[in-house]
């Protein structure tokens, strides 16, 4: 499937028909909600406190519903009128605004405790009008977003980067605007479940949160020496060898028996003088 950004600008692509999909297609709904749940997790909000959040590219308010469930109050901004109409129909609790992220976030300083954005950021990388300059629009977006967040608040933006250049462009502009942070990639080894989250922090440089699905991912081929492999196959070490003695001592120690401490003389042959 070609990327929707190529087809038309967002305010035209998300027409009534496309907006309908976001209320009827259970697969789209499920994915959006999952991503939003993960984004809120990455926000690291104080526990059991209702927060005031900003949802950028809120669309039909699917992500907003997740925020509501967790007890937060939110404000959504989107460029597509049809999507917002669907959101009003769904009777979401959050307030909605029709606005273009590339023109800046129209809020006064220090308003929000956090910001989330699900699958919207990649739209900003395109120039849909002759007057659009993606780099400039991105900078404007990030700098006004930085301003409207309160101290130590985070912004988590899930997006679908087209290539590594785009990812670099986004991070670079965010850093230029004053943010700390970077991209967290969940399930990097899966084509389908792989998700990119741009985690931006305002209050100083902190370690990025750990990505999901990276536990089993090894960076290279593991290598076991030939000798060790043979040993593993055989199981026990050669009788009367140093290894065998050490293993036996260890076993007896585990059994709670009195065992002499290991030293460099352990398992060494007596000299001929004896």
């Amino acid at each position, binding site marked *: 499937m070609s990327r929707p950004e190529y087809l038309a600008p967002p305010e035209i692509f998300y027409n009534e028909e496309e907006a309908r999909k976001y209320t009827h297609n259970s697969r789209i709904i499920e994915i959006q909600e999952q991503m939003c749940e993960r984004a809120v997790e990455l926000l690291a909000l104080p526990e059991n406190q209702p927060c*005031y959040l900003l949802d950028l590219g809120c669309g039909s308010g699917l992500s907003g519903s997740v925020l509501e469930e967790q007890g937060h*109050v939110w404000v959504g901004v989107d460029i597509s009128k049809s999507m917002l109409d669907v959101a009003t129909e769904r009777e979401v609790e959050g307030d*909605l*605004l*029709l606005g273009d992220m590339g*023109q800046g976030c129209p809020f006064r300083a220090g308003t929000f405790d956090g910001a989330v954005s699900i699958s919207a950021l990649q739209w900003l990388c395109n120039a849909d009008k002759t007057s659009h300059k993606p780099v400039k629009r991105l900078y404007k977006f990030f700098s006004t977003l930085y301003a409207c967040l309160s101290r130590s608040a985070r912004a988590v933006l899930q997006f679908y980067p087209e290539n590594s250049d785009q990812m670099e462009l986004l991070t670079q502009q965010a850093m230029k605007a004053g943010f700390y942070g970077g991209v967290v990639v969940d399930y990097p080894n899966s084509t389908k479940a792989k998700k990119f989250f741009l985690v931006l922090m305002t209050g100083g440089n902190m370690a990025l949160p750990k990505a999901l699905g990276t536990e089993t991912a090894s960076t290279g081929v593991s290598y076991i020496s030939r000798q060790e492999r043979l040993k593993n196959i055989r199981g026990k070490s050669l009788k009367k060898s140093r290894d065998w003695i050490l293993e036996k001592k260890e076993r007896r120690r585990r059994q709670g028996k009195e065992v002499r401490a290991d030293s460099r003389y352990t398992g060494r042959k007596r000299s001929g003088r004896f």
Partner: protein
Amino acid sequence: MKLLTHNMLSSKCLKNVNVGYPLSIKVEEMITSVVDFNPEFIARIIPKLEWNALKQAVNEVGKDSCLPNNLIENFENDEDFLKKVHHVLLEIEIVNGCLVCPETGRSFPINNGIPNMLLNEDEV
């Protein structure tokens, strides 16, 4: 649009506008709905509010009697006060009308409860 959102909105994205706050409201149609009262959230949001802007907004929508003139101290424990603020912030909803930038006079129409903050190319 709720008055809480209005209290946070500014028109500083417009070219040559420095503060762009507070936006004045022209109401054509508004409704009052019932929203669950969450005292914890209201107590957390009050320090972030611009009280004078809120007073002005309440005045403009014609609900002046709803709110005391000054922010009282120790509001966290005054449930009556929190309920009043809750009503003003979350239950009054502007359905149609417009927001006007205090510096340039540019108006942002509100249709179906959604303010249109889109700018023309020459205004950015």
